[in-house]
């Protein structure tokens, strides 16, 4: 569809504080854009739960463990 390259975009739209695509009106300054962000950030702003950090530790440990035994 409307393929635009970045250069044209920069020349034609000084859009620092404009919605990314005004045609769709989802910028964060619109009523829906704002609510959408609030909805999303309600979860996305929470700290990473420990269960995931522990999971990654376990995956890491399992991997280096198997590497070690593979080397020997």
């Amino acid at each position, binding site marked *: *569809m409307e393929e635009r390259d970045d250069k044209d975009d920069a020349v034609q739209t000084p859009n620092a504080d404009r*919605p990314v*695509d*005004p*045609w*769709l*009106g*989802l*910028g964060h*300054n*619109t*009523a*829906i*854009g704002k*609510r*959408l*962000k*609030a*909805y*999303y*950030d*309600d*979860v*996305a*702003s*929470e700290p*990473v*739960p420990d*269960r*995931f*950090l522990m*999971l*990654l530790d376990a*995956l*890491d440990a399992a*991997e280096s463990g198997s590497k070690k035994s593979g080397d020997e």
Partner: protein
Amino acid sequence: MAQETDFRRELIAIIPNLRAFAASLSGSFDRADDLVQETLVKAWDKQHTFQPGTNLKAWLFTILRNEFYTQMRKKGREVQDVDGVHAMQLAGHPEQQGHLDLQDFRKALEMLPDDQREALILIGASGFSYEEAADICKCAVGTIKSRVSRARTRIAEILKIEGDGEFGPDSISSQIIGVAPAA
């Protein structure tokens, strides 16, 4: 070794986004975290297939989305059965008490078809480009645009949002459908 550490650090940085996306897909915070867990395990297993320098966030979102729809297919009926429970679980989220505005928006989102909701989230909240969202959803860029647009119009109707900036729902839908706004 250093690369692995980077991979881990980048994964952790993206987890908050994965959780928010998963919650919007599944409609349940518990299920969202299970989805994120599956995604992390899968991503870890096939981290060698990730091309460094490409978009890790989009790669992870794709894994999570695939996982979600695979689970949906596997236990379609089960998921349907708990549909009514979703809204209750969401309403029960402790941080949500008193946020009526957010509650209403959540309910409105729940009423959208899955494909429209995910397009709206990817573009409007997760910060992906249309091209990236199209890759994640394995569809055309134009499809993503039309889903976002329909989602936006529908949400505006449900919430009765009027005068939403200069690009209100009426002007959007009339541009797309090619008919004059009803009111």
